[in-house]
Structures are given as C-alpha cells and as structure tokens.
C-alpha cells in the first residue's frame, strides 16, 4: 500500500505534469515505469520527488519499448502501475499498448502530445490523437479521455485507473504540452471524499503452483485465423456494450447553437472563450466537446450536429478528431468548415474570426 498525500481538499497552483503525479498517488497507484521525453518529464520528476513520502516505486527503463512492457509486467503482478510518454515515445510504445489490447491488460498511460512528425517540437500539438486512439497493429480496443486543463487531469487520471481495471481495456489520458507545462489552480482531493472507490487490482498472471491459486492463461498468440477472429469479435461486442457507460462529453451553449464548434482537449477551452465573445455579438455559437474520444458519445454528438445549421471542426492537428467524428455522423447533412493549425495552439480570436466568416459565407461541404 502506498501512502496517500492528499487527505483533504487542497487547492494548489501546479503544472499539469505535477497534477498527474499527485492524481496517480490519489488513485493509490503504486508503481510508475517511464522513459524521459519532453513535455512529460515532470510527471516522472514529481512522482520521484514524492517517493520518500508515498513509498511507491519507480523504474526508469532504457527506452519507451521497455517502459511499456515493464508497465505491463507490473500490472500482471497486480500493481496499479502506469506510465507516461509523448511524441516519438508514444510511437515506439505502441507495441506494448497493442499487447495490452490483445491480453486485456489494464494499462494506464498519460500522453502529453508534442509536435510531429518525428522530433518536431517539444511544445504542444493535438497530432497524437489518431495514434493514441488507434495506434496498435491489429484492431484492438482502448479508452481515451481527452482533458482540457488541470482539474480534468486530476479527475480523469483517477478515473483512468478505475476504467482500466474495471473493463480491462488499456486506458489513456490524452493531454498535451500546454497542459503539462502550464500552471493554473487546481483542487486536489481524496477520491473517497467524492464517493469514488478504487477498483481492486488482483494479480492477473497467476502461476497456479499452489492449490488455492488457479492458473490464469492469457494469450497474445493464436494459431488459427478463426481463433483470433473469435476473440476479437468478443472484444468488439464487449467494447460496444460497455461504451455507453464510459462515454463522456461536454456541451457549452450548444442547445440553440446555429454554429456548432466541435473540439477536444485544450482547444475546447479556446472555443468557449470565442463562444462568449460571439454570443455578445449576437452570433449563436456553441460547443460540443467529446471527453472520451474513444469511444465517442455518438448519440448526443449526432443530435447536436443535427440541430446546428453549420459545424466547425477545429484542432491543433490536420483533422484527426474530425475524421473520427465524420464517420460517426454519416447521413447528417449539416455543412461543415474547418480551422486546423498543425501543432499550433488555436486561440479564441482565431475562432471568432472563423465563425464570423462562416456567418457571412456559409460552409458548403
């Protein structure tokens, strides 16, 4: 058992990376595996700085491949373990994440997106959205929460552990370098004070050597094509069945919105700033923000798109979320426009100007 540091509500002024380390401790995580990459390093730094007090564990591995598989090792042994990565690290950790999909391992990872392709920038992007949702080989199932600031980071990091261990699908916190590096106030709390009970984390891989311990054989290797499909069909059925319990979204002034902005993560906050300004000018704009970007909350998403006269997709990427959304809103004919800035922050002003131009010249797609 680890020592929990936050025993009562504590308001702090932290970077997002620090928040994630505190959240993992609040969730009673007992081990972190990791390999340094900007902009997520301070998750590891903070976790390590707190070790004398928390009595948790940490292992710095030789690379992200090893960090990913070590995390799996810890989890198989019944540790509430996690890791964090970004950018090229996220790419090479996909092998382990894929294994977690196949073997149904409650893998928890925080991704702090940076610019790509390759080394690119250490600062910020939303360019790892597709990778984090669909990065593995084969067609595995994962759950991805996209956060929009420090309170989200704390709330959803705690939730990620419970989601992962309850449903046994790898679960991700998808944030970015802005959220990792920026400082803003946040309320830290003991999950128990919010009625949250942490899922138990029994060892998954059991040896079966003693009479009271039944062996548990989990596989990532199959001999026959049909054997594999049978397993994956089961996963798909289960994922679709539990999706409604997991799906989360947020709407902001979307009820009567004529122009609906669809954005995830920190960009959604810029959209809120823009929407307030546009409403003051008499333009009915609103926001649909998927919090789980996998699975997407399809029903409310379709309803919001149907209600609006125009849709605006905006991302610090070239339409990665939009592609996922467009597939799910097939058949809805509301025209849309886009504001994509690859690896660059979207500001409120950017969106105000874009929406104003859409009022003058409506979208045609």
């Amino acid at each position, binding site marked *: 058992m680890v020592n929990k540091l936050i025993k009562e509500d504590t308001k702090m002024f932290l970077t997002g990376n620090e928040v994630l380390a505190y959240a993992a401790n609040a969730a009673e995580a007992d081990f972190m595996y990791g390999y340094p990459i900007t902009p997520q390093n301070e998750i590891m730094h903070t976790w390590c700085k707190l070790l004398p007090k928390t009595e948790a564990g940490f292992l710095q591995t030789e690379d992200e491949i090893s960090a990913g598989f070590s995390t799996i090792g810890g989890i198989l042994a019944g540790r509430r373990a996690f890791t964090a990565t970004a950018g090229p690290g996220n790419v090479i950790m996909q092998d382990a994440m894929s294994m977690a999909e196949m073997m149904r391992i409650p893998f928890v990872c925080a991704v702090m997106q940076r610019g790509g392709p390759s080394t690119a920038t250490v600062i910020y992007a939303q360019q790892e959205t597709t990778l984090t949702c669909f990065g593995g080989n084969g067609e595995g199932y994962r759950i991805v929460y996209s956060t929009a600031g420090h309170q989200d980071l704390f709330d959803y990091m705690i939730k990620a552990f419970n989601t992962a261990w309850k449903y046994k699908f790898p679960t991700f916190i998808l944030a970015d370098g802005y959220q990792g590096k920026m400082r803003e*106030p946040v309320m830290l709390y003991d999950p128990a004070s919010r009625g949250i009970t942490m899922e138990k984390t029994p060892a998954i891989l059991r040896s079966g050597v003693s009479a009271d311990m039944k062996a548990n054989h989990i596989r990532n290797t199959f001999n026959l094509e049909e054997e594999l499909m049978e397993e994956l069909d089961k996963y798909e059925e289960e994922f679709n069945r539990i999706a409604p319990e997991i799906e989360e979204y947020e709407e902001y002034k979307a009820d009567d919105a004529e122009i609906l902005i669809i954005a995830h993560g*920190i960009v959604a906050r810029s959209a*809120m700033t823009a929407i307030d300004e546009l409403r003051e000018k008499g333009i009915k704009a609103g926001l649909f923000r998927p919090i789980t970007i996998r699975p997407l909350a399809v029903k409310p998403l379709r309803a919001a798109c149907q209600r609006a006269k125009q849709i605006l997709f905006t991302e610090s990427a070239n339409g990665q979320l939009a592609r996922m959304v467009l597939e799910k809103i097939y058949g809805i004919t509301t025209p849309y426009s886009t504001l994509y800035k690859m690896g660059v922050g979207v*500001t409120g*002003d*950017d969106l105000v100007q874009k929406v104003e131009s859409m009022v003058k010249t409506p979208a045609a797609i």
Partner: protein
Amino acid sequence: MTRTKIALAGEGGQGVQSVAKILVEAGYETGKQVLYIPNFGVEQRGGVSIAFCQISDTKIGEPRYSKADIVIMLSDRAIDRCTTYIDENTTVVYDTSVCTKKPEVKCKKLIGVDANLIANTELSARVFNIIILGVLLEATHVLGLEDIKNAMEHALGKKFDAKPELRELNYKALERGMNLLKEKAGV
C-alpha cells in the same frame, strides 16, 4: 476586460521564465485566476524563450491568445518572434541596451528601457530580470508591490535568508524597474 494578457520574451538564460513564475505566483496568492505557459525550444540554453501569462478576475478559457495587452521583448530575436502578438491595443516594452533595433510595430505605446545597462552598471547583472519584473508590474497595475515581494520571498526566500543583502538588491531592482517606467510615462 478583467483579463490581462502578457507575453514576456527574451533569450534563454535571461530569466524570463523565472520572472513569469514570480508574477503568476503573486497573482495566484492574491486569489486571481492565472494561467502561465512557458514556451521554448529543444535547447537547454539559448534560443528564444517566451512566457505567456494571463491574470484574470474570472475563469480563463483559452490557454494561448492571439494578441497580448503587454509584450516585453528583451532581444532582437524576441522582437522577431513576438511582433505577431502585438496590435493597436498592446503596450510594447523593449530593452534598448540589448536590442540593436527598434520594433517596427503599430501599437498603443512603445517604450524603450535600458534595464540591462542599469543592471550591469548600477546593480548586478543577476537582477536584470527583476528590473524587468518591476517594469512589468508598473505597466500592468494588476498586482501590488507587496504581492510581488511576497511571491519573491516564496521563490527566493532561502537564498535571501542565506544572504540578506540579496533581498535588498532584488527590492532595489524591482523599484528601479517600476521607476523606469514611471519616468518614461512622464515624458
């Protein structure tokens, strides 16, 4: 508007991020909403370093903004990189003793200060950034001198206790920076 948007830019190592941290810490301690993003490249030293700060009475949405209320530029490269954050409502401050050029911008007010020269000749090169903090304090009027002093104590208290003359030096630098802008405003 209850929100003040500040961009503070210089060369890596000039202490831009340290000053920004003190500023937002002071804002947080006085109960304001604050948001601070440090922005720099892959290099450990050198390169342009920008601090995006926002201090507000209400909840802050966008993490980054298009145009700032105050832009402080402490090198030629900072001028090149930060001109994009300036419009007719922006107060622009640049250091004439570091920059070799004058920013070519349309703004509300363009103020040149020679903080680097003052630091080197009158105080100490180490407090150059604290002079800039004084300039920033006077230019924004969002926070009081005592708020900043408390935040400095928070950040530098241990160093101050070890060497009390450092506290005096930093206070002097802070006030020198504030007066620098007051003098300019009087012109």
